[in-house]
């Protein structure tokens, strides 16, 4: 749960790094521009969360899935994100199952299992 209000903001340094990757080299990002993008990103998280939970509710399920997030993109007219996210989901599933089989082989090695066990 969010204990402080700042917990609902995304770290500015990380946001700058993402922006720098997206833009040609040498472009500067103003302080206000950076805070604006970070705020936009936080609100975007809530926006997709609510679009995705709507899908879950309408189909009378309980748990949110990765596919719901992708379907939510189409619902909020961000269709351009659907294809890249499908790829992300496939990669994620591959990596998650690879990890699962690796960790079941050596059960004592608890190093790699954190993301699977996380609820």
């Amino acid at each position, binding site marked *: *749960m969010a204990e402080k209000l700042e917990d609902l903001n995304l770290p500015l340094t*990380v946001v700058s790094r993402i922006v720098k990757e997206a833009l040609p080299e040498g472009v500067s990002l103003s302080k206000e521009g950076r805070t604006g993008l970070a705020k936009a990103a936080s*609100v975007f998280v809530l926006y997709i969360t609510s679009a995705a939970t709507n899908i879950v509710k309408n189909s009378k399920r309980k748990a949110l899935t*990765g596919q719901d997030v992708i379907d939510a993109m189409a619902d909020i007219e*961000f269709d351009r994100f659907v294809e*890249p996210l499908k790829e992300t989901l496939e990669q994620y599933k591959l990596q998650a199952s690879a990890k699962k089989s690796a960790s079941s082989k050596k059960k004592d090695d608890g190093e790699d299992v954190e993301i699977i066990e996380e609820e």
Partner: protein
Amino acid sequence: MSNKPEKDLHLPLSRVKTIMKSSPEVDAVGPEPLYLVTKCTELFVMDLARRSFINSHNSLDYKHIADVVQEDDTLDFLREIIPRKITVREYKELMARKSTKANPDDSSETSSDEESEENSDSNQEDNQEEQES
């Protein structure tokens, strides 16, 4: 690059999870939807930055982002978060125009259309005023 899926992301999963859970409709967030929401938010930041950059020359500033937000209807959800800034002079002119409009003696007849526009204007002003300082 390692094989760990979380290494492909920049934004911290834990923080994104906190934001998602701040929504009253959400109680548990599994790792798969969390990963996708995080990835998606990164795509969104990159997309918004690139589109805002088209109108900026070499320095991306708040106003370039606000312009994109106001012009694209799919970004409607950001309009109150990232309003366009106006100058104090523009703000005063806006208020002056509004007070003459509000006075029924000065304006002969305002259609209901105009009135509703005025209302949405005044909502935005509150935000814009906060941005001014």
